[in-house]
């Protein structure tokens, strides 16, 4: 294992060559906002919130999929990055219908947290008010597509940890949406094991336990973490 040294926001950091900038930053206690990243499953670099500046490169790079390199000079919180991140979060609020006061995840939502972090007090963009569906055909869970940010965390967790691959994406552009099996009601899915991993993976109130009311949707991310560590490192202690 080769160790690389680099600086993040001027702070000297060392990391193994396999690590990403996000890993290295987190280990050094430097916070980089993320949304599509989920500990334990593969990264897709889709939400673009973790973009960082690297000296010597004009292009911004996503920290979640960029490997550390010797001598790298990384900046994670320039004014420019902060502005882009705020706009990304605004875009998500404009795209779906996020009325937090009536949402199961109110207070327990990563999107809401990001909005607070970015200091987003209003949305300058036009709301789309899309006509999206709610599927409560599953006897324990439900999905409200209006609150989905298309992070594909449910898709990856179901595929990579549970091994069921119930979830997938369909449509493109603004019509993109997650589907269960061959785009059929979740309740009729032949592959879903009702393990609830997607419920815990979802950063927002999109996937929820039926019967939970406003503010009740707690996500237990640590359960996913536990499973991954257990499998990979054969450590079974919670």
């Amino acid at each position, binding site marked *: 294992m080769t160790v690389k040294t680099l600086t993040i926001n001027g702070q000297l950091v060392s990391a193994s060559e396999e690590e990403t900038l996000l890993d290295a930053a987190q280990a050094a206690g430097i916070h980089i906002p993320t949304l599509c990243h989920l500990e334990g499953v593969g990264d*897709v*670099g*889709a*939400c*673009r919130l973790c*973009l960082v500046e690297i000296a010597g490169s004009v292009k*911004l790079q*996503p920290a979640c*999929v960029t490997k550390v390199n010797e001598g790298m000079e990384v900046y994670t919180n320039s004014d420019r990055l902060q*502005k*882009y991140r705020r*706009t*990304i979060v605004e*875009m*998500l609020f*404009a*795209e779906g219908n996020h009325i937090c006061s009536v949402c199961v995840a109110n207070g327990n939502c990563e999107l809401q947290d990001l909005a607070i972090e970015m200091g987003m007090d209003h949305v*300058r*963009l*036009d709301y*789309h008010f899309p006509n999206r569906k709610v599927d409560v055909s599953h006897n324990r869970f439900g999905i409200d597509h209006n609150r989905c*940010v*298309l992070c594909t965390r449910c898709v990856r967790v179901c595929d990579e940890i549970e091994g069921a691959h119930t979830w997938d*994406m369909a*449509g*493109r*552009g*603004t*019509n*993109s949406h997650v589907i269960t099996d061959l785009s059929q009601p979740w309740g009729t899915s032949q592959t879903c094991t009702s393990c609830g991993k997607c419920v815990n993976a979802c950063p927002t109130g999109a996937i929820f336990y039926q019967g939970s009311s406003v503010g009740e949707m707690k996500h237990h991310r640590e359960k996913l973490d536990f499973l991954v560590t257990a499998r990979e490192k054969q450590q079974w202690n919670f």
Partner: protein
Amino acid sequence: MELNELLAIAKQERSQAKPVQIRCCTAAGCLSGNAEGVKHELEAGIKAEGLEKDVEVSGVGCMRLCCQGPLVQVDTPAGSKLYEKVTTQDAFAIIEALDGGKTHISEIDLSQPFFSYQKPIVLENSGKIDPEKIQAYIAAKGYQALYHVLREMTPGEVVESISHSGLRGRGGAGYPTGVKWATVAKAKSDRKFVICNADEGDPGAFMDRSVLESDPHRVLEGMAIAAYAVGANQGYIYVRAEYPVAIRRLQTAIHQAQRLGLLGSQIFESPFDFKIDIRIGAGAYVCGEETALMASIEGKRGLPHPRPPYPAESGLWGHPTLINNVETFANIAPIIRNGADWFASIGTEKSKGTKVFALAGKIRNTGLIEVPMGTSLRQIVEEMGGGVPDGGTAKAVQTGGPSGGCIPASAFDTPVDYESLTNLGSMMGSGGMIVMDDSTNMVDVARFFMEFCMDESCGKCIPCRVGTVQMHGLLTKLMQGKATQADLALLEELCDMVKNTSLCGLGQSAPNPVLSTLRYFRQEYVELIQEYLELIKD
């Protein structure tokens, strides 16, 4: 197959050529005007007149002036004539006039700038040979470059030669082809792949389609040379389903080449094996982006993923992969045949060779042109294109499709090369060129391209998925005369943000048409805003 056998095929093909040739364009443009029917009538007429011994009717590729199609060229020992807008009823008259007589069908002047400024390298056989006949390609020196490469050059020498030629990728970005080949050649792996990107999705562009329909073997030969140079044994041509004629001709070409041992195992009795398969895309613009294209070939959803890793390192199924555009591959055989120095002597200092453009829009002559790099936009638009019909004036020319921009008439003296177009805020792109006249509203143009990007965004990353929708909304608001200064400021902010934060080239370049029209035609945006201010004042 040995070289003497190849040459024998060429000789036989040439000796069989009949003294009079009637060539019918059977590329997509003319086919849509019933060129197939014309060809049938001509064949039937020649048969009825008993002229089969001396006259040959053949289907050939694009003859360039597509707007006047169907085109029929008659070559007799006395000279050539190019007939335009030929209908099935005209066949008889053409046959009657074979001895030099006059007809009522209008002829195209072959000495006009539209033709005389062209320098065919990529299109050297287009309009001349039958794309469905491998013998015709061989008679036009086809597959000699491949022989030369396999039997007389090392892979390193081939890469060196392509680097030396100065060829740059014709798929848009203009990355040096030699450098790309060298990177894949150096990658260590027991499996490598070569991909031909024939996805061509830019609105108004049909260069790659024309090459595939007019001279498919040249692409296969280029791919085989590339495969030898980088050490690959399997190639894929990723072509969109909207191109059925191109697909059919490619299939025919692959079968023919395999039958003659020019593809397959131990090509030209050398230890080199190379197989090519066709993969048909379902028509998503983003599948032209290389990482999305490879995902699609692997049978997955055509979504781009972040680079690095680049395909040269980790491409198809994780193996090093060379991916080039159709036109890039079409340049390879001539470079090997005529030498890298010959190629490097054409074009400008940093942009070598020629470029094929699909010339379209408000212009007299629309069609396919191949000009040396460095030809000015004015020469292309005013002389070759013959200017705007009905006394209008050209206002701008759009190059580079949805990734490009609009260049104003005041900059028409710019030479066409990669750097000049980028400096003007546009880009070479794959070669679409759309001329706009004074009646065109540039905000509307920007809106059109934004609509395209919005519809074609894959939806994976947020800036592109939502940003294109928001920008489209703002442009629509402007067009409806309902936008304010704040909307314009927001539009500019979104352009910057989407450009810098999107995952792939689609999102990164989607703001370009807006940025370039803002740069040269800002006044048109401002006028639309002022109209609104006037309105709400009353």
